[in-house]
């Protein structure tokens, strides 16, 4: 009787382990998207004293997260609405931004992923927080991101700012 229970417990543990292993090798798309966006936030960070060459390489690497026809629209109070169309414009904007900031820490919070019915696209809501040393102000911005799955890779197709307070 006792050995029977041990067998059942062993089987359940084995099934759990198998499920965990399978999830590790085949993570759900939501998890892949969250990881991808977290990696983007990490890539957008700039360390103090980073060389111009390193900054240039960092800005170039950001383009790997976007589709070639990406569109980024920024509409925040106090600034005129601005849109970047295509990967080249985004890359140029990233290079220009990295040249003007001494250091920057970017983090994404509250990443809510809604997969499209085809599982090839996803709508993501998130809150971006940007801080720079010496600046007491923390920039917080809600974003709406549309992602597209291209060759097993989730890329950003569209980014729009969301006004939390209108």
């Amino acid at each position, binding site marked *: 009787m006792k050995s029977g229970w041990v067998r059942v417990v062993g089987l359940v543990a084995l099934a759990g382990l198998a499920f965990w292993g399978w999830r590790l090798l085949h993570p759900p798309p939501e998890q892949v998207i969250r990881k991808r966006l977290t990696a983007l936030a990490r890539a957008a960070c700039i360390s103090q004293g980073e060389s111009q060459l390193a900054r240039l390489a960092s800005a170039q690497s950001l383009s790997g997260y976007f589709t070639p026809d990406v569109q980024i629209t920024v509409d925040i109070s106090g600034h005129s609405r601005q849109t970047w169309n295509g990967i080249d414009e985004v890359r140029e904007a990233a290079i220009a931004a990295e040249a003007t900031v001494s250091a920057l820490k970017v983090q994404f*919070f509250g990443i809510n992923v809604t997969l499209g019915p085809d599982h090839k696209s996803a709508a993501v809501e998130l809150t971006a927080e940007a801080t720079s040393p010496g600046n007491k*102000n923390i920039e917080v911005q809600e974003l709406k991101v549309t992602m597209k799955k291209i060759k097993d890779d989730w890329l950003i197709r569209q980014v729009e700012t969301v006004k939390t*307070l209108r």
Partner: protein
Amino acid sequence: MPTTGTNDKNAPSAGWGQRVLIGRDPRWTVLRIAILVVVSFVVSKFVLLPIRVQGISMEPTYKDHRVNFVNRLAYVFHEPRRGDVVAIRTSDEHIMYMKRIIGLPGETVAFHERHAIINGQALDEPYVKQSSDWERPTEPVGPDEYYVVGDNRSMDWDEHTQGRAKRERIVGKILL
């Protein structure tokens, strides 16, 4: 060897240090710790959400880096009221705006000559200590919206986040 302080001769004897650290009966101590952990989790998740204030937009009422709590049950029996300081969520509750409600659903809000103007009348705001140069035209507040703003009106309009918040985004009232 010090005594355990019990009259039960069968009870295992424990040292003073052990009694202070884990009590007379370790099983009850474990149970008490488990209950404390569960209660703390439930309270901090569903009743009083701990927050840390960041930024200067609510000064002088709330200073930068202070710890506070959001009472999530504040609006169970009534809707938010004018003057309430509330937490407004972004895409989740990790980052929230802390603002004061000055305009209620259906009202109009404007800023003129150092005053917030609600439905054409200057609002008495004793919590606003610094003078403001904000001049903003009249803006209607939607039926399911609240107009929120910080107490620090000495900031530039563009640097101060304010505006209409949807009711569903108001997480609760600031406790302290």
